[in-house]
């Protein structure tokens, strides 16, 4: 406390750290691209991805290069899986089911 009822308070909140990654360039055209699919393991995520992949294949001649089902909806995809996606796919689609 200082004079005149002035106080210094410790800020109990945190701010997000600067991201250690940058976003990959967006695909301008998905025709013929290799797509990776990430299923968050919630209900209907798999069905949603399968239907979507089929539509994309019909309309844009995409191919499914990788399919990953997360061990838990509450956990991020394994970094090794993400690395593999980056190598083998041109783009990825994540489905959040329920």
């Amino acid at each position, binding site marked *: *406390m200082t004079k005149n*009822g002035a106080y210094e308070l*410790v800020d109990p909140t945190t701010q997000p750290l600067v991201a250690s990654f940058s976003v990959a360039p967006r695909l301008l055209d998905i025709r013929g691209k290799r797509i990776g699919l990430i299923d968050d393991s919630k209900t209907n995520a798999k069905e949603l991805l399968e239907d979507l992949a089929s539509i994309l294949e019909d309309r844009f001649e995409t191919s499914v290069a990788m399919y990953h089902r997360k061990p*838990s909806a509450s*956990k991020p995809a394994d970094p090794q899986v993400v690395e593999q996606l980056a190598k083998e796919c041109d783009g990825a689609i994540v489905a959040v089911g329920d």
Partner: protein
Amino acid sequence: MTSGLGSLVQAQWNDPVEAVEQCYALGWTDGLPVVPPTIERVEEFLAVGNRPADEVIGELPERRREVTVGKVAANAVMAGCKPEYFPVVLGTAEAMLDPAFNLIGPSSSLGGAGILVIVNGPVVPALGVNSRNNLFGPGNRANSTIGRAVRLILMNTCAAIPGLFDRTILGHPGKFSYCIAENEGGTHWTPHHVERGFKREDSAVTVFACEGPRQVRASNTPETMLYSTADTISNLGTSMASVGSVGDTSEVLRQGEVAVVFAGTSDVWEDWTKDDIRRYLHPRLKRSMADLKRGGALEGEISDGDEDEYLQLILSPDDIMIVFAGGAESSHMAVIPSWGPKVSSTSVTRRVQWPRPSPDCLNRPSTIPETTKRSTT
């Protein structure tokens, strides 16, 4: 002045109500009034913890947050803790940030988990953490404020703010405060932390992401009490009796954990160990395929054999936590199902730095349970 406390906020007030209102205005509270985290008060806590304010105790990478000793101290101050509670709050925060606990899940999920803190060891009588009557209720400063510090830490340092990252549908009152201690002196059972590999003279905290406690009233014999307890655990509608959100569905149901708190007197259980109880309960924690279909946990029509085919709700007897605590008047139990499957969050036990590391701080332990004082003098 202690360094490493991060940003400071200049404030001015002329009376306590103004001080409380300013903390509301800053968006720092859980909806209840807080103690303003003045730098002097936070430093008192840090002196007890005897660790640098800027030491990072864990991180939440999904929200790009780091949690420091100083931030934990500020939130413990706001919760109304006494400085000597700080090692318990710090140990609890470290346990929550253990990767096995996967804090991102229970702090965001629509399932609305509370984080139960179970305190064991010599720190319990030293700080007067309540392990007896009104176990989950109000009236004891250590339980109320340590449990509340957990929620403030989640909201302020982990951004688990209702409506933002905390997407709870219902939640339960344990989200305000949910801290109990085991009554180790009242039972012949092995204390919970000793079952988890710590020494009896160690102090430890366990964090468990879970639903609210469901009281079980059943007296007479150990068998009748345990039969009723098993029946309560096996209810439809809990997280344990549901599916989904797990990649590996070979067990069909989600396979979480359950905590069971046993109140009453220990002599009722003189012929039983905690493991005996687990052996009794475990095979009974199940539900028929037919019931699971009737309740919508499983899809499909009920077919031949579904009435007689049972699914196990808890995979291993080790996933049943047993704690002796509560009033001695009657043998009540409390059943606490986990928020989710173990793969999404597993209960974690951590040692508490107790006795406190700084010799200066050992002169002021409270040995009297800090019950709510009605007098203001």
